[in-house]
Structures are given as structure tokens and as C-alpha cells.
């Protein structure tokens, strides 16, 4: 059963001449990773927000983990879906990073032991253990975004909705996010991410959905969509090199391309 199913969803903002998104139909199965690509204003964030019941569609049906969201609020989906907002400062409020991560599970009524366990896991996975007892605002801005993502993942959602998860991050931070998304998918979490980051798309997601003027114009393998228009990110260097040099890598991801490159260079001495 798909974790997210949207059927003919149309969303209109009050007073707007055209619909923000029109007749959107898509499904995301457990373990799948979908990148939402397109120009600014194409409707990507609107689509994401509709999936979390932050907006009510004018028509169409949205189902999250089998639940019809028509009469639901975001807090009703918090046990199965997690949303990482574009502005992480919108959620940070606890006095320590540790407490911030524990907030979601606490709201959902988890047992104390489970809360403690998932908190340590998240602290370790996101390399936040040294800052566990710091105030989130004492951390530099890129690390705050990581804290917000860790807090979102702490509730162990089945559907992860991410809005520009790597924006403004340094290289180390981007790698942490890529690994966290891949790890979540490996445990069956479905991921849908609005992004302009070609690396994230290739490394951690597999499908790309292109939105233009509120409609889906392409839904295909990420490699086919990247670089196809000016409004989508270009193909990352490893994938480009694999193609141009004919390295024959097992996948366009940098580890696989590096392995193929190593093979070629070794045989050349």
C-alpha cells in the first residue's frame, strides 16, 4: 500500500487567479524517494504542504498511510508523517538539542525508555552528541537545520516530507542529510523532498517529479529529469563523468562512480 496517494488534487489560494496545483496524481510507496523539482512558484511547496494536511485541497483526494486527510489536521498525521520546514527556526524552542529532538516523541506519548533511545540514536546519527546539552540557538545556522531534521526523524515517521533539506548547509551537513535520507529509505520510510540540490537527488532519492505551473509534466528516473531544463538542477559531476567517460558505474552515485573510476585508473597504472 502506498504511504502517500494523491488523486486529482487541485489547490487554490484565496484570491489567486489560477490554481496553485492542478489535478495532481501521484503515489509514493514505502522506501521510495521522490524529488519534487521545478521553478520557483511551480507549486512544489504547495504539493508538499497538501500532503501534510497543512492546506485543504479544493478537489481531489489525499491519503497518508491509508488515512483520508479530508477531515484531518497536521497533528492527526504526526504519528505517521514528518515535515521538515524550509525555515527550521520555526520549530526550535527547547533549551537543549536533546530536548528538542525528544519533543515529537513526547507529544506522541511514547514511553520514556523509547524516547531516550531514539534521542541517542538521532544525536549519534547527526553527529550532535557533543552539542546535546547546548541551546539550539548557540549552534551555527547550518547545524540548527540539522537539529530540526533530527527532531523530525525522531518520531520515526513512515512518510518524510522535506522542504529544501540541504539549503544553506555546509558540505559535512549535506553529507549527513544524504546519509540520513538513504538510511530512512532503507528502513521503508517513503520520502518526498522539494529540492534544488542535484547531489541530494542522485545520492538519496531515485525518482524525480517535475512541476510546471502547478502541473506534473514529467515523472521519471532522476537521471532523466536532471539537467533537462533550466529550472532543474544539473547532473552532478560523478554522474556526468560516468556518462561521458563510459565508466560503467553500477549507479550514478559518487561511491559507485568512484569505484568504477578506481578500476579504470588501476588498469592504466
Amino acid at each position, binding site marked *: 500500500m502506498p504511504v502517500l496517494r494523491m488523486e486529482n488534487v487541485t489547490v487554490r489560494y484565496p484570491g489567486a487567479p489560477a490554481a496553485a496545483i492542478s489535478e495532481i496524481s501521484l503515489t509514493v510507496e514505502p522506501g521510495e524517494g521522490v524529488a519534487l523539482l521545478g521553478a520557483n512558484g511551480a507549486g512544489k511547496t504547495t504539493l508538499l504542504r497538501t500532503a*501534510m494536511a*497543512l492546506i485543504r485541497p479544493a478537489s481531489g483526494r489525499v491519503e497518508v498511510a491509508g488515512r483520508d486527510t479530508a477531515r484531518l*489536521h*497536521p*497533528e492527526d*498525521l*504526526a*504519528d505517521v*508523517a*514528518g*515535515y521538515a*520546514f524550509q*525555515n527550521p*527556526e*520555526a*520549530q*526550535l*524552542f527547547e533549551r537543549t538539542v536533546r530536548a528538542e529532538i525528544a*519533543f*515529537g516523541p513526547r*507529544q*506522541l506519548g511514547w514511553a520514556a525508555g523509547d524516547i531516550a533511545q531514539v534521542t541517542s540514536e538521532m544525536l549519534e546519527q547527526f553527529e550532535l552528541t557533543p552539542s546535546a546539552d547546548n541551546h539550539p*540557538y548557540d549552534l551555527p545556522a547550518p547545524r540548527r537545520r540539522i537539529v530540526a531534521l533530527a*527532531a*523530525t526523524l525522531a*518520531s520515526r515517521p513512515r512518510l518524510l516530507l522535506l522542504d529544501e533539506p540541504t539549503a544553506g548547509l555546509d558540505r559535512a551537513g549535506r553529507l549527513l542529510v544524504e546519509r540520513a535520507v538513504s538510511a530512512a529509505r532503507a528502513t521503508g520510510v517513503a520520502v518526498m523532498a522539494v529540492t534544488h540540490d542535484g547531489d541530494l537527488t542522485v545520492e538519496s532519492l531515485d525518482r524525480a517529479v517535475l512541476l510546471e505551473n502547478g502541473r506534473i509534466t514529467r515523472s521519471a528516473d532522476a537521471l532523466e529529469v536532471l539537467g533537462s531544463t533550466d529550472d532543474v538542477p544539473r547532473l552532478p559531476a560523478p554522474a556526468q563523468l560516468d556518462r561521458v567517460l563510459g565508466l560503467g558505474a553500477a549507479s550514478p552515485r559518487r561511491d559507485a562512480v568512484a569505484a568504477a573510476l578506481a578500476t579504470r585508473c588501476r588498469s592504466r597504472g
Partner: protein
Amino acid sequence: MKGRPGIAGQAHPFTLFSVVAGVAALAFLLPAPTGPVLLYVTVVALAILTGAGASVARAALICLPLWVLLILLLAVGGDGARSAIGPVTVSRTGLEAALAQGARLGAVATASFVLFASFDPSRFLDAVAARGWSFHAAYLVVATLQAAPRFRQRAAAILEAQRARGLRFGGGPARRVRALLPLTAPLVLGMLSETDDRAMALETRGLDARASRTPLDPPMDRAADRVVRWSVAACVAAAALWRLHALGAF
């Protein structure tokens, strides 16, 4: 600099401020209850004539609960000789007091709403610069006022984010109180953090510079503006003298 549409929007920024200040002063100087009531009627008439009818309605809406309270407390619940109005009896002195206070409220509220509706921050700041007054001080006041819509947007974003994490704010009072911190703390922390960044940016853009600010396109101070301001001042002065005379000062 083009102002907002309507006569109030076209007036010089200082004119409206003088009018509001004048109305507030007259509201307390004029002898109750006829003074404030006439003042309120005059302000409403002027507002409607200058195309600011919506502000009249908005102000009345805000004042309504307070008017009801005044009537109940002072008129119905007041002491002294009573008159019958329909099925209820009201204290005559109480009714006069309620009318006076209600009219004062209405007059100041209406004038204020007209001001808010036509306030243009950059036009106001340009007027300050044209007079050579402290731009930095005026900027701080205006920027604080401008913070309100951003505050609301932020609060809405925070509410969404915390709801998406499972925060429920309905239910009993204890639960509602507990829900306050996740909603208010990000607001305060975010605003403080942005204030720091903005203060740095403003310094690099010369806000503290010793030079006097160049007005970019100062609003015209027409003869009509000056007439209005002087008339308001004259009315306030006359009312003040009248009041002093009535109090036996001379």
C-alpha cells in the same frame, strides 16, 4: 512621493498625526457630554467626507463592546436621579458620563484608524528627513510598527511547524498553558536573532552615519496641510483656554 489613495493618504504624514493628537486633546478638554459627542460626530463626518468610511466602521466595531460596558456600568448601574428609557431606568448623570467616555473613545479610535489606514512608512520617514529631524529615531519607531505583519506570519509558521510535530492546543487549561511555550519561544528567539542580524546590516548601510539623511522624494506639504494643522492647534488652544476659564483660572 505618492501616498495612499484618498484624501487622508495624500495629506502630509505630519498632518494626520497632528489631527489625531488634536482629537485626543480636544476629547478631554471639551466640556462633557456635549463636547466629546460633537467631536465624535465631527470626526466621523470628516472621515466619511474624505473617503475613510471603512475606518469609521472598523473603529466602531472595536469600540462596541466597550460602549456596552460603559452603558451597563455607568448608566444602568449608576447612582443618582434616574430616568426611564423604555423598559429600563438609567442614572442621568451615569448616562451623561457613559456618553462622554464613549464619544471620547470613538473619536480617538476613528482618528487613529484613519491614520493607520493611510500610514506609509517610507513617506513618513522621508518627511522626517526633509525636516532634518533624527532619522535613526524615526526609523526605529517605524520599523517596530512594520514588525507586526512579520510577527503574524512567523507565528502562523510556528503554529504549523509545532502542529506537524503533534502539538495539540485544545483541551483543558493545563494543556493549553503547556502548549504556549512551543508556540511563543520560537517567536521570541527568532525575532531576537533576526534583530541582531538586522542591527549589523543597518550599521553597514549607514544608519548610524553622522550625515543628515537625504530625503528621496519628500511628500508635499501643501497649504491645505498647514491650514489643517494650524486649525487643529487653534482649536486645542481655544478649548484649553475655555477650560481654564471654566475652572476659574481667569
